[in-house]
Every structure is written in structure tokens, then in C-alpha cells.
């Protein structure tokens, strides 16, 4: 499915289950998402991660609602499954779509200005380097006997200095590769929203509506 349509669908459904209260629909969404993820050949480690880590907030919410909420245990279960529904819905997108395809389709089909699509893409591609830079900043401060934590303004200050420098370099590099802001572009890789994408989007969204309408438990 087109990544842009998929993201839109996932967000719409996630938004809807925030406002509706149906335990069974939550479980159906989790099951369908899980089945979809399993067909996509993802690693066991990633699968374990999305099952294990949400357990903490899910149990936390469950217990507090159970002990202090006025709506009873059924509502606590809805909150518990809601967290998993968010995560599994999200995983159908994040584990199977590339951020490059997403920004290409956002530019070509959703009419996002190209400077946003490519600018943000360029920055996101630096993510591993940024993680590295954070480590470098912390280590070099440590060598001067200065421990930087997430509450230290200096850590952010140095990060912003790097961002300023890198944004300058990246923008120059893109310009020298022929990128012109606010100018019509031609595309090497063309991504279109097909009739199948539309059909899937509408049918899946409609099915969720029907489920939410009829299953109130």
C-alpha cells in the first residue's frame, strides 16, 4: 500500500479508538495488525520489542484505572488494549515502510512543497550520525570533567550548534546537486496512489466504522 495512505489510515484509526470505547474492536485491530506484520518478514527482535516495552505503560494505566477510576475493570481493559492497538497499528507502518518512500509520496501525491519533503528527509537520514554526535558531545565534555545529562542546557546548546552547521552544509550540498527551492521537479522514482490503494483505504476505514458502530462492548 502507498506509504502516505497507510500512514493516514493508521492515524485516522488510532484517533478514532481514542474517542471510542470498545474492547473487542481494540483486540480485532491488534490481531489484524499482528497478522499483517507477520506476513512482512520482520525480525523477531523487533516483534519482541513491540510486545514487551508497551507492557509497562499498559499495566501502569490498567492498575491506576482499576484502583482509582470510577469506570470499572472493563474500562481498564480498554485502556490496556488501546495502548497495544496504538503500537501495533503504528508498527504496520513503521516496520514495513521506508521514510524515503514516505517523503517521495508526500511530495508527489500529497503536494507537500519539495523543500519540506527533501529537507526533512535529508535530516532524518542523518539520524545515526546525530546519535553519534550526541555521544561525542557527552564524551568530550566528560574528558573535561563535565558530565552532561538530559537536563544540562550545554548539551542542547552544543547540539544546536552542530545543527546550525550541519543544516548549512546539507542545504549547500543539496543546492550544489541541483536542488532548487520552490521549483517544479521531475522524478526518477515515481510513486502514484493507485486505484488499489484507494480501494484498500476506503474499505478498511469503512470496516472499522462498521465494527465500531456495532460492537459496543
Amino acid at each position, binding site marked *: 500500500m502507498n506509504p502516505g495512505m497507510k500512514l493516514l489510515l493508521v492515524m485516522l484509526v488510532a484517533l478514532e479508538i481514542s474517542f471510542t470505547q470498545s474492547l473487542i474492536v481494540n483486540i480485532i485491530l491488534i490481531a489484524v495488525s499482528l497478522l499483517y506484520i507477520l506476513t512482512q518478514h520482520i525480525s523477531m527482535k523487533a516483534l519482541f520489542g513491540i510486545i514487551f516495552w508497551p507492557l509497562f505503560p499498559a499495566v501502569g494505566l490498567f492498575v491506576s484505572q482499576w484502583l482509582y477510576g470510577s469506570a470499572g475493570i472493563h474500562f481498564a481493559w480498554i485502556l490496556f488494549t488501546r495502548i497495544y492497538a496504538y503500537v501495533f497499528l503504528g508498527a504496520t507502518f513503521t516496520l514495513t515502510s521506508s521514510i524515503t518512500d514516505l517523503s517521495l509520496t508526500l511530495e508527489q501525491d500529497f503536494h507537500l512543497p519539495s*523543500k519540506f519533503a527533501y529537507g526533512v528527509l535529508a535530516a532524518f537520514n542523518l539520524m545515526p550520525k546525530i546519535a553519534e*554526535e550526541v555521544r561525542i558531545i557527552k564524551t568530550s565534555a566528560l574528558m573535561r570533567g563535565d558530565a552532561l545529562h538530559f537536563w544540562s542546557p550545554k548539551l*542542547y546548546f552544543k547540539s*544546536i550548534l*552542530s545543527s546550525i552547521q550541519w543544516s548549512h552544509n546539507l*542545504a549547500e550540498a543539496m543546492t550544489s546537486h541541483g536542488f532548487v527551492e520552490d521549483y517544479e521537479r521531475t522524478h526518477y522514482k515515481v510513486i502514484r496512489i493507485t486505484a488499489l490503494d484507494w480501494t484498500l483505504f476506503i474499505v478498511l476505514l469503512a470496516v472499522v466504522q462498521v465494527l465500531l458502530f456495532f460492537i459496543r462492548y
Partner: protein
Amino acid sequence: MDNKSQASGVKKQSQWTLRNIILIALIAIFTGIIFWGAGFLYTALTVALTPFGMAPFANDLLMGLWCMAGPLTGFIIRTFGSAFLGEFLGASVEVFLGGQWGAGAFISGLVQGIASELGFTLTGYKRYDWFGLNASIFTTVVITFAWDMIRNGCDKFSLPLLLGLFVTRYISTFIFAGVLTKMIVKLLDRSKAINL
């Protein structure tokens, strides 16, 4: 006349250049990654508070951290939408790093982005000082709290517990999105690295 139109053209020139867009995205990713390192804190707090049924406090205690990217980018690139973009991208980083919120983080990012942007909108993008920052903090706390009441079912709690959560969130946001942001902006100001 030609000169005049050129002068007004320069004045109106959009801040949304390729370079500034990349800058916002980079700052958002940097802050996203720094908080990612503090992510264990959230899990640890949740585990510690769960037996008392106080797990929602973990969320509110750390709220300020997650809402830092917005005011920060809003302060550095002073134009409509920069706080929103920074906050939203910051939340997206968590999604791509495999955060525990999944699609929920995208939606929280949207809500937090709109919330922190609104503070700058209310001051007409003119007050880039302690007052403007506090306006952004105020809208952030009120809107994200209202959203979390729906999402996490907090509206089913009793009033004292709700008040406690609200005050916790306000203090956290005030410290991280307020005091810490102000300190960072002050450092930037002194270094003259950027035209504030």
C-alpha cells in the same frame, strides 16, 4: 519605487528556506535522541509507581521533556509553524526509533505541536521573551492535559488526583520547556551563533 517594493519584498521573505527546514528537523531529531536516552527513566518510573496505581504520574512528570522541541525551535526560527514542525518531528523520531507509543506518538506529536504553536500564535509571533515562552507553556499544558484525559481515561479519576496530575505536568513543563529552554536560548544569545 522599484527599490521600495524590493525592500518590502525582503521584509516579507519567508523564513521557510530549505536551510531553516533542515535546521528545525535536525534540532528536533537531536532532542528526540537525547530524550530517547532518558526513556528508561519513564519505564523505571512507571514500574515504581504502578503498584500504587500512580503510573499516570510518570507521564506527567516527564511531560516537559517531550514538549521541549516545540518551544526551542519556535524560539530559534521565529515564524508561524516552526514550533509545530519541531515538536511533531521530535515525536516522529520516537516512532522511528521504535518507541513504546507506536502510532500514538504521531498523534501526541500533532497535539503537542499544535499546543506549543498556539502559545506563540497568541502573542502574535512578537513576544520572544519570558512572557511568550510562558504563553506557550500554558497552552501546551492545558491542551495536552485535555487530550490525555480522553486518551488515558483520566476523566474517570477523582478531582484531587486530576489536580495532582495537572500540577505535576505544569511544573514539569515549566522546568523543561520553560527554564531549560530559556537557559539554552541564553547560551545561544551569548555565543551569537544565531541571529535571534
